[in-house]
Each structure stands twice: as structure tokens, then as C-alpha cells.
């Protein structure tokens, strides 16, 4: 898949409590969750985010709770991809399962600045900073995970395994 959008850049250890505070977890409606995405970290995020935008962050993005509401909120807020130096384990799984594109690429994170326009090619892991012209290559997904993504997520893959398609 190809994505292109403006970067919102954050630091390390962006936890799931700031991605979607628990005070809003009395619902699982994506549109409701999106209204509060990242509000405790960056209250302006929801106002400035545009459909197709990209988040760039340092290490351990998505640490903390197992709430799948976190990648759901990010996706519903309009973000197509998150590029980070590393992801917390449960967030990584949840993103694969819910179809939020995630890319691990420390070099890209170091180079890309807030507000840059970046394009992402998920199949090849190619990240291009359109503002500077620099390109980077993210860590490729292991084949098993690439297969889940290719089949449209874990639910579709399981349906296929169970012969439900």
C-alpha cells in the first residue's frame, strides 16, 4: 500500500494512556475514540490531523495497556501509518491485527522533522521524505506477519484457515 501525508512527530515511550486516555474507554466506537486521540500528549493533534497523515516517533511507541482502542483511535483519527524506532509488543500485534501500517526505521525517525511530507510504500518498506528527498528502508516484516497483512488481518486469515471464506 502507498501512503503520503504530513508528519506529526513525537518522542519516545508514547504510551497507550496518552494515545487514548482510559476515561474514554467506556466506548469502543472508532469515531468517538478518534476525537480524543493523543489529547493528553498533544491537545492540538485532533484539530490539525488530516486524513492520510503519518506519525513519526522515537522508541517504544504504544507502550502500556493492551487496549486495541489505541491503534483504532489512531486509524480513525486519519493516520495511515506510524514510523517509529521501535514499538511496544502488544501495540505491534494490535496494529497488524487492526490494519494500521507500522514501520520500524530508526534512520528515518532521526531524519524526518515535524511537518515534513512523507510517503510510504508498505510492501517494500520504502520511506521517502518528500520535503528533503531522502529515502529510507524499514525493517521488513517476517513472512508470517506479512501474510497476515496480505490477507487483510488476523480475522480474515483465521476465516480462511477455518474454511469460512
Amino acid at each position, binding site marked *: 500500500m502507498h501512503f503520503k501525508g504530513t508528519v506529526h512527530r513525537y518522542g519516545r*515511550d508514547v*504510551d497507550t*494512556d*496518552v494515545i487514548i*486516555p*482510559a*476515561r474514554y*474507554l*467506556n*466506548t*469502543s466506537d472508532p469515531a468517538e475514540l478518534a476525537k480524543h486521540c493523543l*489529547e*493528553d*500528549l498533544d491537545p492540538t493533534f485532533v484539530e490539525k490531523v488530516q486524513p492520510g497523515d503519518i506519525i513519526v516517533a522515537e*522508541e*517504544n511507541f504504544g*507502550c*502500556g*495497556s*493492551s*487496549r*486495541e*482502542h489505541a*491503534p*483504532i483511535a489512531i486509524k480513525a483519527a486519519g493516520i495511515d501509518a506510524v514510523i517509529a524506532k*521501535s514499538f*511496544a*509488543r*502488544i501495540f505491534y*500485534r*494490535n496494529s497488524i*491485527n*487492526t490494519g494500521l501500517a507500522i514501520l520500524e526505521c530508526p534512520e528515518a525517525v532521526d531524519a524526518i522533522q515535524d511537518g515534513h511530507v512523507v510517503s510510504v510504500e508498505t510492501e517494500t518498506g520504502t520511506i521517502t521524505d518528500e520535503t528533503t528527498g531522502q529515502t529510507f528502508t524499514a525493517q521488513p516484516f*517476517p513472512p*508470517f506477519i506479512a501474510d497476515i497483512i496480505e490477507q487483510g*488481518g*488476523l*480475522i480474515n486469515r*483465521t*476465516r480462511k484457515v*477455518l474454511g*469460512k471464506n
Partner: protein
Amino acid sequence: MARPMTMAEKILAAHAGLEEVVPGQLIECDLDLVLANDITAPIAIQEFKKVGVDEVFDPTKIALVPDHYAPNKDIKSAEQAKIVRDFAREQGITHYYEVGCMGVEHALLPEQGVVGAGDLIIGADSHTCTYGALGAFSTGVGSTDAGIGLATGKAWFKVPESILFNIDGQLNPGVTGKDIILHIIGLIGVDGALYQAMEFRGSAIESLNMDERLSISNMAIEAGGKAGLIPVDDVTRAYMDGRVERPYTEYHSDPDAEYAQVINIKAEDIVPTVAFPHLPSNTRPASEARDINIDQAVIGSCTNGRIEDMRQAAAVLKGRKVHPYVRCIIIPATQQVYRQCIDEGLMDIFIESNCAVSTPTCGPCLGGYMGILAAGERAIATTNRNFVGRMGDPTSEVYLSSPAVAAASAVLGHIGLPEDLD
């Protein structure tokens, strides 16, 4: 003969039907238990329904615990809990716990014998790693993984590397399991064990009762850990015998098993510890935190809401009053702990010291209800996370500690140690 393996690797291999596994290997495993709560189960149920099966894989191997916003805090959370309740009734889920029987899930399931040594468990709650203290491999997942687990009883795993923590020696007085795990997270950071299994061993661990061991494994996730295992010994067996419903299996790491890292810690180096805002790794000795005034103390949660935690808090609060500027909220984590607090006279101590005692709930730990902080307020809490806005307003602050330090701080009005009291 199979390669030498860690206990984490052995449990995963056994559940994948393999003689051996190696770190990095992707495997599909049979699960002994799938867990979800009132926040994560509604999405798991929604995903389960998309799979296209009518029934769960085994209604006796699923635990649904409405504990986060139960007793329900508002209409929306009541609707979420109702989705879980209706599903539990429709599917005949054995381990559904209604309000009145309910407790904070990770205190409840070990107590009720639903989890045991050698189990492979996934839970749609990050603190599912708690059961590692019983010698199980248990790990937090999201709702989609849990939904697939409900349908198939299976999950995929990447076999993690293990880190061995050897904690040997005599613990200092007042040092608890909570201080040990805060000390470790302070050492290695909030992603120090990312994607890895943590294994805790050594004479200091062996000296701990089960409740304190559960506190240690509970916070493995705060170092990024996938699991936090403690070898089974006589303390574990005494806890599990007569309690665990199913036969349990002990898996012990081979002496020549490979670890990504071995970290030796002298028990004597660990002191009562407090994690400052806004990361559990931001630790300092409690003795260096006396200038921090507090507005609230919370004693409870899946980390420290068990009977031993209640006893430690009561020992400090006995004959004393909570500082007039502090709200001290005590939440026994299960009905059984609550009842035991009454039977042992702890409840009288709490009420006499002007504490508010709540029915079991996760409530304030995640900023749900039952003790939310206003702008700029500070709390000391025996909970597990102190992220921005975790317990309320984004400008509020949470300091993590053991029950004894939280209780002493509640009396003092600032962070302090039991020995600071008259």
C-alpha cells in the same frame, strides 16, 4: 534430545506440540485460558463474531471479568458490561464473574485456581503477565487476538528470548516484591525487556510469599516484557495445591539454557522505591522523596490489592489517622480479600484511620473512577503505571510505591517511610 531451554521456551514448545523451540521462531499454540475484561471483551466479542463460528472453543477455558468500570460508572460502561454479560450467558462461560463475585482479574484468577503452573494464557489486558509468578507463560494481547482465541483456542507467538534476573541475598526490612520490580524497571527501563521473557530467580525471590511474587510478575510489562516467570517451588505448590482446578505442570529452565542476558542483583542493594512521574522506570529511593506532598493515596489494584498488601498497609495505619489533607482509598482486589480484611480486623483499622474502602474494581488505577485526580494533584499509589493523565487530569501526578510506603505517606501527608511515623 531437545536443546537446553528456558521455562518460557518449554511451555511454548509443549503447547505447540514441539519437542523444542528457539527464540525468534513463529509458532501456533493451544491455549489453556483466554481472558478479557469489560473494556477489551466487547471488541473481542465483535471480532469473534466476524470469524464465522457460533460457539467458543471451550466455555470452561475462557475468563470474562468485568472489573475495570464495574460496578458500572456510567451508562456507556454499563452497556459495555452488558455486552460481556450477555455473551457469557449465551455461551455458557464458566468463569464469568458478576459484580459481587468479581475481583480485579489478575488477583481473582490465581486466587480462584483458574490459572496454574505450566499454563499458556493470553489475556486482553496487559497485566496478564501476572500469572508468570505461578510458573505459567501468560501474556497480554489485544482484543482481536483474544477474539480469535475465543473462537479457536489458539494463538500465534514469536518465541521470545529470555532475560534472567538473579536476585540473591537477604532483603532489607520493608523491601517488598513491589520494590524489587520497581528497582528492576529502574535498572533496565520501560523497554529494557521489550519482546523478551523475564525470569526471576534467586534466594531473595524464594523468600517471598505468593502475593509479593505476583506483584513482581505483574509489572514485567512495565519493562516491555512479554512474560515474567518465576520457577515453581514449595511456596508455589502450597499456594496451588487444593486451589488449581486442573492438573498443573512444572517446567524448570535447564541449567545450560541460553539467556539473552543475565542480570545479577544483590538483594541488599534494593531499598523501598518510588517511581516518579511519568514512567515506572523513573525510580528513586523512597527516602529521597520526602519533599513530595500528596493529595491522595490509593492502595489496591492487580499489582498490590491482595491480602498481604492489605496486611502491610494495615500494619502501618493501625492506631494512626490519615493526614487531613489526604484522601486514602483502599481497594481490596477481590471479594475474598475484602472478606478476609473484615475477618482479620484490617477493615476496622482502615475505617478507624479515616480511609475510604471500596468494593473490588480497577477504578482509579487507570483513571476510570473512584478516585480521579484534579489538575495539579498528586497521588501515591500501589498501582502499576504513572503515565501522563493515568489517574485523572493530564497535569496530575502519580507516584508508584509499595503498600507500606503508600500507607505511611497517607498519614504523613507527603511521601515517606513507615519509620518516619511516631
